């Protein structure tokens, strides 16, 4: 019945609800600017490039090894290093940014503007996704074209696993992003989850050299599953199902917990 009471002189001909395209790009530009001004932000892109360059410069890293299933150390590390930026932005940058917005009441400022604060979150996730995608492509191109690592045969499966893997860790990162009121609190949840993913993505020990039990556990950790999809270990549907599971659980939990204040 509200429409009946609208003063026709005041009401516009057409209601434009929420976020406009222009508003969205303005928000995305704001997030980019803030990231550019944050000294730590570019570490998320730079660190993997540096690591890959070190591995790529070691001659022995390019020789096939029996205990890595005939692959070279470089072959094994390209996907692992490519996983770093998606994990860092999802587990630390996203919750950290939301915590600092919440800490300063910035979210309330948006709540009284025509843009729903969800629009700001959407713009942030989009910028992070672009960041992650850019970094993954950069690492894979650098690894294969410059340092000569082998591309996996099933490219379609790998791309979908990486994409779904990113969505899964964003969904999990959204849980601390939903509630954290300080950066410390955000990192308290985000960093352990990131390290867990680093470990099972084979950053500290190659997956092929882990005990069998660890390898099995790794199949159920988001970026462990992505790595298996890359190397063609196990059934692809299982890995994608694991990632979809994290996405649904993280999404539900964060939607339930989300606080704008």
């Amino acid at each position, binding site marked *: 019945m*509200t429409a009946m009471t*609208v003063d026709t002189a*005041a*009401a516009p001909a057409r209601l434009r609800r929420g976020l*406009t395209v222009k508003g969205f790009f303005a928000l995305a530009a704001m997030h980019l*600017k803030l990231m550019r001004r944050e000294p730590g932000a570019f570490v998320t892109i730079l660190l993997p490039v540096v690591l890959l360059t070190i591995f790529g410069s070691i001659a022995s890293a390019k020789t096939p090894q029996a205990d890595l299933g005939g692959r070279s150390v470089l072959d094994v590390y390209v996907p692992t290093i490519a996983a770093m930026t998606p994990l860092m932005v999802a587990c630390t940058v996203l919750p950290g940014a939301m915590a600092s917005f919440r*800490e*300063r009441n910035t979210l309330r400022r948006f*709540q*009284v503007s025509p843009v729903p604060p969800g629009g700001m979150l959407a713009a942030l996730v989009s910028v992070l996704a672009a960041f992650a995608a850019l970094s993954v492509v950069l690492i894979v191109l650098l690894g294969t074209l410059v340092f000569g690592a082998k591309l996996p045969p099933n490219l379609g499966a790998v791309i979908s696993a990486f994409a779904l893997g990113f969505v899964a860790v964003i969904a999990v990162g959204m849980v601390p992003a939903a509630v954290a009121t300080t950066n410390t609190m955000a990192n308290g949840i985000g960093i352990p989850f990131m390290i867990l993913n680093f470990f099972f993505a084979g950053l500290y020990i190659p997956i092929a050299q882990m005990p069998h039990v660890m390898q099995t556990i790794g199949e159920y950790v988001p970026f462990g599953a992505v790595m298996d999809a890359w190397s063609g270990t196990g059934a692809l549907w299982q890995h994608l199902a694991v990632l979809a599971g994290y996405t649904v659980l993280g999404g539900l939990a964060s939607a339930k917990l989300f606080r704008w204040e």
Partner: protein
Amino acid sequence: MPVIEVTNLHKEYGRVTAVDDVSFSVEPGEIFGILGPNGAGKTTTVECISGLRAADGGSVRVLGLDPVADRDELHQTVGVQLQEAGLPDKLQVREVMRLFASFYRDPADIDVLLRRLGLAGKAQARYKKLSGGQKQRLAIALALVGNPRVVILDELTTGLDPHARRETWGLVEQVRDQGVTVLLVTHFMEEAERLCDRLALIDRGRVVAVDTPAGLAERTGGGQRMRFRPSAPVSDAELLALPEVETVTRHGAQIELAGTSQLVQAVTSLLARSQIIAEGLRVEQTSLDDAFVSLTSHMETAKEN
């Protein structure tokens, strides 16, 4: 048609009643104040009007819109300045203004607005580098950037020095002069007295009175208060014999009297008859301050009984 209409607003947080029963309406083009002690329910009332909280009972209409159901449309035409709304430290003033301007159908000219708010020289400054007064003015600029028909200002001048406070008041009057309706939340009497066309006095989640500042002050009897040093002794009994005198308080050689609006005239003629001179005479009208204290403490005793 009123610009803002609040009818029997009720809001609870768990078992705590923040707003019990608040009704008032704001007419186009006025500066309407919400005045009350801390914890009276002012901010909750304003949050319900701004669409930040859903009411538990009663109704709120702003320009005919429901602040919760029509919040996106509401925020196109209603500008809100919040008590605390920190912006990212590393954004520049102009960047913040551009960002928010991009959300509105009909944004104000950013440069004109920054100049009016005395922020033109700070356009390139990062938020972090602004002083408290500059941050406050930026918050007002953000409330105005969408060319609103109504602005809601919450504790506008809290934390400002007296000079900045006076400047900000001038600004609010300018905004009103351009035809914008202003809803102002405050706990400064001076601010309410200077700016508001009408006031709602809120205490313990209820509206105690709605009136002009002068009307509210008169409710306490419109009495007078005077202080002086008599040149010769004068007894309390003599003073209290006058029907105009209500209380006599002595501070050393000084006498303080409170009474009706005829107090000063009655006392000075009594003194003249006795050939006593009132040295250092000071006279005060009862102010909004007195009205505030008497109306809100009255509520308190009523509740306790």
